[in-house]
């Protein structure tokens, strides 16, 4: 059953779009469009990304300009989202934090997809002990307590890495590696399940009969056809990674204190909840909106790419 997934949105789908008949990409777009919330969410997410990328140009206020005469002020014309306890502009800090949070989310998703696809593919194509061993490893990682380990690892390795690189980039690499390293398991399981069914399909058998090497069978025939659910899982992973990064920062163990990620903003704002709720609310709303939009997009993509799975 699993192998009968219709064509997926892959790179080759895009290149085939030039062909005269209804291309898989256009077909996918038609189905995606029916999911109104997903389309709206895509727009919201696009606006968020544009704001985060171009915002500092449109709102050229320094993120670390301290002004003690304007501490903890509510929203006003000069500070659209108000100021924090040092008189720094909250909007500028939310925009800057968005760059970090979104890029951590995307990069961690890449890591989890790469590791998950690799492990799932190796397990799915090789039978016997390799498969069993890799799946045992996957199950082991699934039952690891992820947040405690994330906390422990970032705390323990942060200082060592800081000596090797700058404070911000070292934490970025560490967080991406660790968050990605703890979220590849569902991807690996999906890819393995796809491989197990796809490799018995007739078209793969035909390729095998024509003398295609295992590598060619995988790269040319099996992998492209198993990417649909993987893309869906990847979308969800972006949201999960953003939450994981924010959680770490919120617990005071993520990026260094002067880097305003969304979680860090909430961490700083929580002590002023009674007198300056706008501060915590703007950072929290940014996280919430982004995660919600990504989850809706994932749901829409699931309808398009993976119609059998319902959860």
């Amino acid at each position, binding site marked *: 059953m699993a192998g009968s997934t219709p064509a997926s949105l892959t790179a080759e789908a895009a290149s085939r779009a030039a062909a005269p008949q209804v291309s898989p990409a256009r077909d996918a777009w038609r189905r995606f469009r029916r999911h109104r*919330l997903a389309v709206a969410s895509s727009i919201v997410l696009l606006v968020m990304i544009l704001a985060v990328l171009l915002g500092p140009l449109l709102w050229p206020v320094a993120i670390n300009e301290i002004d003690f005469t304007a501490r903890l002020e509510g929203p006003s014309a000069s500070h659209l989202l108000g100021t924090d306890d040092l008189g720094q502009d909250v909007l500028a800090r939310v925009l800057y934090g968005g760059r970090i949070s979104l890029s951590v989310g995307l990069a961690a998703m890449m890591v989890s997809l790469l590791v998950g696809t690799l492990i799932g593919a190796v397990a799915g194509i090789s039978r016997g002990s390799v498969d069993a061993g890799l799946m*045992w490893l996957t*199950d*082991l990682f*699934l*039952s*690891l*307590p*992820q*947040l*405690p*380990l994330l*906390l*422990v*690892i970032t*705390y*323990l*390795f942060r*200082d*060592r890495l800081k000596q090797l690189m700058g404070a911000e980039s070292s934490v970025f690499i560490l967080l991406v590696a660790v968050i990605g390293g703890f979220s590849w398991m569902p991807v690996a399981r999906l890819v393995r399940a796809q491989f197990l069914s796809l490799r018995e399909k007739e078209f793969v058998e035909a390729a095998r009969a024509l003398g295609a090497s295992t590598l060619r069978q995988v790269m040319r025939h099996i992998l492209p056809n198993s990417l649909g659910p993987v893309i869906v899982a990847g979308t969800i992973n972006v*949201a999960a990674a953003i*939450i994981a990064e*924010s*959680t770490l920062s*919120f*617990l*005071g*163990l993520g990026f260094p204190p002067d880097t305003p990620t969304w*979680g860090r903003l*909430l961490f700083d704002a*929580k002590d002023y*909840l*009674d007198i300056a*709720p706008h501060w*915590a*609310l703007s950072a*929290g709303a940014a*996280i*919430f909106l982004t*995660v*919600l939009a990504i*989850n*809706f997009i994932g*749901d829409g993509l699931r309808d398009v790419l993976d119609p059998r799975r*319902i*959860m």
Partner: protein
Amino acid sequence: MGRYLLRRLLIAIPSLLGISIVLFTVLALAPGDPFGELASNPAVPPEVRMALRAKFGMDDPIFLRYVHWLVAMLHGDWGFSFVSRVDVDALIWQRLPATLFVIGTSQVLALMIALPIGVYAATRPYSVFDQIASTFAFIGFSLPTFFTGLLLILIFSIDLDWLPFVFRSDLSATGWRWYWEEFRQAIMPIAVLGMFQGASWTRYVRSAVLDVIRLDYVTTARAKGLREGKVVIRHVVRNALIPVVTLVALQMPAIFGGAIVTEQIFRVPGIGSLLIGSILANDTPVIMAVTFVFSCLVILFNLIADVLYGWLDPRIAYR
């Protein structure tokens, strides 16, 4: 059932060993040194530091240290907190009840939200109720626990001043008053965790029920004249719960993650806040033990899920 349970227990042992190896390797590779502070203290001569290191076996090869640690753990000797100057197991036993209470109650709450809403939405798919429930479910699990926690504090503690936002373990009240105060301070942590879990479980329940409700035996049950309520509860829900149990078991690590955050926000004196405190204080034995307790809890809940499986689907137990 007994043999099935035994087999499950035996399968849990290698997982626990594997987890302990992963944990130990992470800690052993890490650059932090519990005696690092002594090195910069001029009052402590280097010989004393070396003697301390030797006494705690810090210079042994890593494999030997792991075996030592594992044997000690099995003997119930969980080490000594460098910071609090108490035995680690005493510290954990003191903190564990609060965590288990908050997690347990919030899971019950999540179940009470997810089961009725999920089943009702699935029996009327694409109705107005279903769409509202789905949207709320999405909102619920897109709201990170730390933000919901702050929102609840903002609304119920600061604006309305109904509930206390700091969890106190030294309540002075007695009798009924004590239970009331305990209940009042536990509402928000439980609600935060319960709503988050309830939202994602609602989707699982809904999709699982949708899968089952179109099967032939459900039609049969209806055809033989059973009341709709009985069909849903006896024939649909019980079978739909099987995949739900799997997903819930898979979510266990995330639940404990949420519990750590909630404990930190509301200052619940559980093992989550103990973990964060000990990480900040570089208190290695406590970090190690708490992380291991979290792993044991995850495995324990997976075992419970297996037992539930056996009960929901007797075929699994006899395979």
